[in-house]
C-alpha cells in the first residue's frame, strides 16, 4: 500500500499566505474530496503535491520518500488540472502516445471505450477542443494512466449535466476495477458528497476538516423547534449556524451531543456535507452566503 503525505506545507504569493502549515495523509484505495471555496488554495496544494511548483516550506512524500525531482515517485501521480500543458497542435492520439511513453503504459482499451461513449474524435487537435471536451479528454487520460494517485482539479468544469453523470459513473467503474486513490478537488459538493469516502475542507490555506465522511456526518445535527427550546437544548454545544423560519429555529450543531434530555417540542436529524461546508467556511454565526 502506498501512502501520499503532505507535511507542514506552506506557500505564499507575495504577502498572501495561500497555504499555511498543511498536513494531510492520503491512503491508497480511497476517494478523497478536497473541498474549498475559490482561492482557498486547492489548486496550489495539488500543484505542490505534483512538483509543478515548490512549497516555501514543508515537503511531500510518497512512502516516506520526497517526491521532489523524483521520477519514480512523480510517475505514481497524475494531476488533471484546468491549465493545459499539452501543445495545441498535437492530436489527441499523439498526446496519448506521448503520455504512454512517459508513464510506461496506458489503458488503450478503456480510452477507446470512453472516447466512443463521450463521442470524442481522437484525430482532433488538442487546441480545437471545446472547454467541455478539453476536460473530457484530460479525464480520459487521468483514468487510463497507470498511477496510484489520480488528482482531479475541478474535473467537471464545462461538462454538461449528462456528461457529468457519465463521468461520475465511469470514475466509480474505473475505481472498482482498479482501486487506487482519487483526490477530487471541487466546489460542487453535492455531486461528490456520496462518492467520496473522506473529506478535506480547505479554507484560506488551512485544513478545516480531514475525516471520513461517515464520521463527519454522524457529528452533524440539525435541531429544529421553537426558538426558545432549541436554544436551551443546544446551549454549550458547538453551534456552527442557524436558520430562522418565523418562530421556528434550526440550530446546526457540529460535534457530539451529550446525553442531555431532548424536549418533546424539538426534533433532531443530521444535515449534509454541503451545509456543513458552507458553515465551516463562513465562520460567523448565521451568515449564509450561498455560492453558485
Amino acid at each position, binding site marked *: 500500500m502506498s501512502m501520499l503525505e503532505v507535511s507542514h506545507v506552506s506557500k505564499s504569493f507575495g504577502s498572501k499566505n495561500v497555504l499555511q502549515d498543511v498536513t494531510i495523509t492520503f491512503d491508497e484505495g480511497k476517494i478523497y474530496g478536497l473541498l474549498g471555496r475559490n482561492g482557498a488554495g486547492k489548486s496550489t496544494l495539488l500543484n505542490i503535491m505534483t512538483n*509543478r511548483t515548490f512549497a516555501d516550506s514543508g515537503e511531500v512524500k510518497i512512502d516516506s520518500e520526497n517526491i521532489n*525531482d523524483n*521520477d519514480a515517485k512523480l510517475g505514481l501521480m497524475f494531476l488533471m488540472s484546468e*491549465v493545459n500543458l*499539452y501543445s495545441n497542435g498535437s492530436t489527441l492520439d499523439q498526446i496519448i502516445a506521448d503520455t504512454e511513453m512517459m*508513464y510506461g503504459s496506458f489503458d488503450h482499451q478503456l480510452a477507446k471505450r470512453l472516447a466512443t461513449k463521450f463521442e470524442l474524435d481522437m484525430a482532433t487537435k488538442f487546441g480545437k477542443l471545446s472547454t467541455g471536451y478539453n476536460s473530457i479528454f484530460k479525464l480520459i487520460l487521468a483514468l487510463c494512466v497507470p498511477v496510484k494517485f489520480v488528482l482531479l482539479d475541478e474535473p467537471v468544469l464545462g461538462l454538461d449535466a449528462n456528461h457529468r453523470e457519465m463521468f461520475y459513473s465511469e470514475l466509480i467503474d474505473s475505481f472498482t476495477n482498479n482501486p487506487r486513490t482519487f483526490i477530487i478537488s471541487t466546489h460542487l459538493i453535492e455531486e461528490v458528497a456520496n462518492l467520496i469516502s473522506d473529506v478535506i475542507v480547505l479554507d484560506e490555506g488551512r485544513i478545516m476538516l480531514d475525516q471520513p465522511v461517515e464520521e463527519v456526518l454522524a457529528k452533524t445535527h440539525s435541531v429544529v423547534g421553537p426558538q426558545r427550546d432549541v436554544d436551551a437544548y443546544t446551549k454549550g454545544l458547538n453551534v456552527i449556524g442557524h436558520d430562522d423560519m418565523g418562530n421556528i429555529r434550526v440550530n446546526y450543531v457540529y460535534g457530539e451531543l451529550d446525553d442531555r434530555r431532548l424536549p418533546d417540542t424539538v426534533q433532531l436529524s443530521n444535515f449534509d456535507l454541503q451545509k456543513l461546508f458552507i458553515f465551516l467556511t463562513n465562520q460567523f454565526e448565521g451568515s449564509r452566503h450561498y455560492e453558485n
Partner: protein
Amino acid sequence: MKTKQVTKYLFRRQIIILGEMYLVTFVTIYLLPFLLSLITGTLGSYSFTNILKNSPISGFFGFFMFVLAALSYENFKFLIQNGISRTTFFEAQISVYGIFVLIGNSVNLLYNYAIYVPMTHRMSFNLFMSGYRYFFSNGGVTVLMNFIFSALILAMFTLMGMTIGSFLSLFSKTMQRVLLVAVPIVGGVTLMYVVGAISNAAFRYTWIENFTKFILGYTSQSGVYNPFPVMVTMFILSAVMLFIVKYLFSKKQLKRE
C-alpha cells in the same frame, strides 16, 4: 530514471521544429527570389549558384540551435504534467542538443568541404577557416580541429539559448517582455561604452589588449593564429553555462496563468 524515453520524446519534437526552420529558410532564400524573378520576368538573372555562394547556409544552424534552446518552457509543461523530474528533463535535453550539434556540425562541414569549396573555391567558409587554418600544417588535423572548433561554437550558441530561455521562463509573461526589450538596450549601450573605452587610445597597449590578443591566438608569425586559447575559453564558458542551465532547470516552475 526515464531519461531514455524523455530523450526520445524531445528528439522527435525538436527535430521537427528544426526541420521547419530549415524549410522556412530555404523557401525564403531560394524559392522566393525565384518566384519574384518569375513574376517580374527577370528569370535570366536568377542564379541558384549565386545564391548558394552568397548565403551562409551552414551559419544558420547555430542560430537555429539558439532559438530552439531558448524555447524550453513548452517541453517543461508537458513533462511535468507527465511526472518527469527536472533533472531528467535537463539530462535528456542536453543529450538531444548534443546529438543535434554533432549531426549539424558534420552536415555543415560535409557541405562546405564537398559542395561549397569546389563550387566557389573559397576556403574561408567559417570562423575557423578564416582565422586559424594556417596554424596546422597537416590537412587532416586541420579538418579535425575545424570540427571540434565549430562544435564548440555551436555548443556555445545552444547553451546561450538555454541559459536565456530558462532564465526568462522563471518570470511571468509581462516580466519576460520587459526583459526582452530592456536587456538588449541596456546591453547595447553598455557594449558601446566598453567598445568606446577600449578603442580609446589610453587603453591601447594595456593588459586588456594583450589579453585579447592572447585569447584570439596571436602568434609571432603574422596571419597565423593559434586556435587553442579560443577553444579552451569556449570550453570553459560552455562548462560554466552548463552549470548555470542545470541550476535554472532545477528552479523551473509552472507559472500561474
